[in-house]
């Protein structure tokens, strides 16, 4: 798997290319947590431009990263949610722990990272 993320300052951007299910979260979790730890990440940007499937494993993944970033007063941004994902976010209450932005650049801008 090619690295599905980029780091800009203290922002970590994950571009989802595969459907966000249990299989992907198992592969991704340790990699992402390692980067958060080693690069001093405070802001996570989850970008769904290229694919828009997520099941309840994705919810667990987002909640887990939220807990991990909380001590650093970090934040999770989500971008390019389609209608289907917006519905999942509403049902699961994910909007209370994430901030939706129109684009990755808009999220980076608010997080104060250098574009």
């Amino acid at each position, binding site marked *: 798997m090619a690295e599905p993320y980029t780091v800009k300052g203290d922002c970590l951007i994950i571009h989802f290319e*595969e*459907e966000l*299910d*249990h*299989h992907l*979260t*198992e592969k991704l*979790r340790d990699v992402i947590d390692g980067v958060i730890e080693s690069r001093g990440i405070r802001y996570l940007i989850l970008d769904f431009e290229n694919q828009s*499937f997520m*099941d*309840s*494993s994705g*919810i*667990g*993944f987002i*909640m*887990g990263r939220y807990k991990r970033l909380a001590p650093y007063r970090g934040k999770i941004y989500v971008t390019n949610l389609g*209608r*289907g994902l917006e519905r*999942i976010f509403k*049902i*699961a209450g994910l909007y209370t722990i994430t901030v939706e932005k129109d684009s990755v650049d808009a999220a980076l801008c608010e997080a104060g990272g250098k574009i």
Partner: protein
Amino acid sequence: MMSTGSNRFYMEMDAVSENEAFARVCIAAFCARLDPTLEEINDIKTAVSEAVTNSIIHGYRKQGGVIHMQADIDDNILTICISDDGCGIADVNKAMEPLYTTGALEERSGMGFTFMEIFMDCLQVESEPGKGTKVIMKKEISKNK
């Protein structure tokens, strides 16, 4: 609207996480003839994903096994049955409560059954400790879009 009639398929797959995506693709292809909306397809894929993931993680405790998936189309009603021969569930009602999970340390959200209920029209769960779990879900695919 094309004439639908009836159709059915049955498959077995190993209880490994690679097959979560495979099961979603299979069900999406099978119900394509009902001409579902994108939203309906997504609902069905999500529900199947939850059931298959449950079998892998909870039914077989990630030790592997066989998952059975059967789907039937009768006119515009899709019925999906996903079952395993895993450890089973002692208290099905408890397991179906939103946010209830035995996998909190593994970041399970406890939303699996809730999603199956929300995204399908009807959900039935049959399980007993030591006798596996069977999930039956139905959804009516809209006609005349």
